[in-house]
């Protein structure tokens, strides 16, 4: 029997959906601040592109592959093109219209696609990224969402993932590593200092991401019930302790607390609590934030010394923190808080094994599938801009716009000018 729609739950889930959608432009700000000024628009546009492309693929087949039926590996095509997605709850126990559920899950697919762009900014062609986004959202995101959320082998086997440690965080992080390896490093990487051009965008983006994450985690109980409330408050607690520990690590390593480090810590803390939010007590959530800061901080410090130009450290911030969060559930989940299962610390070692399966399977699938997918796309079209275009900046050559245009020296072209200005211009020929 399908339960009736609950107005309170539905109201919150409508709001939560909008909050999660806000995270993608917020990520655009965060990423755009981290790149050089000549690539600001292109970097932000990759996030906008994710909204455009992943929404369409989600409506067409992604949602169906993720959520139609109980197949072990992938769902069916019964909900393709939103067939049957209407005002009724989708299954027993759900109290919100499936339309809301569809939109909420769609915003997760969007931000995951946008996250991967962090690995390839400043050199990947925009067109190639659009093609990659469309294929990845179906072949990788929808499949992993089915495993972890939609009735696939992980969730039916008992793996706990509250808000997307598997399909969002580990998938984006390990896909980002594969993407960085296939697309290759920026031409100046390792030779010049490539610095963030606007630390304020980075902080503002991180703040808006944290705000949106209350919908991301707090909505993943699909109700206003206890799981959602617990995850909501844990989303405040866990990133706060990550910040404190990150401050300490910054001081130990460089004697100063850094702003961009703090913005990164907010993201890492939010990612850490994503899988665990509705399953661990507030106290354990704070410990998770503190302990989980260490591996991500270490990988960021180490990665910049390698030849791998995984530019904005998606692997460290999302892949690693998501993995730590998934494993943490296996140790510290508490049935008295979550009503579902205990972890090893409370006498249930089996839960840890279920979590280990997820951290073995999801990164492997995400890495291999993304690697192969980009190799295939790369065989059909160039993945990268030319060195000349890369030097000029992706804003001008991919979009024909600049983020910080002055307008000085700009000559207005009227439609009847046929694309040519009336003033004579020196011919370089």
């Amino acid at each position, binding site marked *: 029997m399908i339960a009736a729609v609950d107005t309170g739950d539905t109201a919150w889930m409508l709001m939560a959906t909008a909050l999660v959608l806000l995270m993608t432009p917020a990520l655009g700000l965060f990423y755009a601040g981290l790149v050089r000024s000549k690539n600001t628009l292109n970097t932000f546009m990759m996030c906008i592109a994710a909204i455009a492309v992943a929404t369409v693929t989600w409506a067409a087949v992604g949602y169906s592959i993720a959520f139609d039926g109980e197949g072990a590996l992938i769902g069916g095509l019964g909900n393709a093109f939103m067939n049957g997605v209407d005002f009724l709850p989708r299954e027993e126990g759900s109290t919100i219209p499936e339309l809301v559920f569809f939109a909420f899950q769609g915003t997760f697919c969007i931000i995951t696609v946008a996250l991967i762009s962090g690995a390839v900014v400043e050199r990947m062609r925009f067109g190639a990224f659009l093609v990659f986004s469309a294929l990845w959202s179906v072949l990788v995101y929808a499949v992993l969402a089915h495993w972890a959320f939609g009735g696939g082998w992980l969730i039916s086997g008992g793996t706990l993932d509250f808000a997307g440690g598997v399909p969002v965080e580990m998938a984006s992080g390990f896909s980002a590593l594969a993407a960085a390896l296939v697309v290759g490093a920026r031409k100046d990487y390792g030779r010049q200092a490539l610095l963030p051009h606007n630390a304020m965008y980075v902080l503002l983006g991180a703040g808006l991401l944290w705000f949106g994450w209350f919908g991301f985690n707090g909505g993943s109980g699909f109700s206003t019930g206890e799981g959602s409330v617990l995850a909501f408050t844990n989303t405040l607690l866990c990133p706060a302790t990550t910040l404190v520990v990150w401050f300490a690590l910054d001081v130990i390593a460089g004697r100063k607390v850094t702003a961009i480090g703090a913005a990164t810590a907010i993201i890492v803390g939010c990612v850490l609590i994503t899988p665990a939010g509705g399953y661990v007590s507030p106290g354990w959530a704070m410990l998770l934030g503190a302990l989980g800061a260490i591996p991500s901080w270490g990988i960021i410090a180490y990665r910049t010394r390698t030849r791998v130009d995984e530019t904005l450290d998606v692997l460290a911030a999302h892949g690693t923190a998501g993995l730590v969060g998934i494993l943490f559930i296996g140790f510290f989940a508490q049935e008295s808080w979550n009503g579902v299962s205990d972890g090893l610390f409370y006498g249930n070692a089996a839960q840890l094994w279920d979590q280990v399966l997820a951290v073995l399977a999801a990164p492997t699938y995400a890495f291999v599938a993304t690697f192969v997918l980009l190799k295939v796309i790369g065989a059909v079209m160039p993945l990268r801009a030319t060195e000349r275009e890369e030097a000029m900046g992706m804003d001008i050559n991919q979009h024909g716009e600049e983020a910080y245009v002055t307008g000085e*020296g700009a000559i207005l072209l009227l439609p009847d000018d046929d694309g040519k200005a009336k003033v004579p*211009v020196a011919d370089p020929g």
Partner: protein
Amino acid sequence: MKLVIGIVRPEQANQVLEALHRAEVRGFSMGRVQGHGGEMDRVETYRGTTVQMGLSEKVRFEVAVSDNFVDRTVEALCEGGRTGEVGDGKIFVLPLEQAVRIRTGDADEGAVTPVGK
């Protein structure tokens, strides 16, 4: 004494800095300027408004040197700034009447020679 002015592409600025460093030219100033040379103009569109951008971002180096440093400074600017495409920039060498190091009051050759040389 000469004043060497080099106007180069912003994306070549780092190479120029490295080349100047290798040439042991230690004192200079640089700033962002906008300029127009022979290069093709860029056409950009902002929500229906199409414009032809006649000015390109450039970086302008100003290096005051004693006469025997002129050639290596010019060579360094050329080496660092050249891509081979139209728009690589220009170098101007001007006579310099006077130079003063503010801290010490050193004048002329003494002012444009790095401390400790």
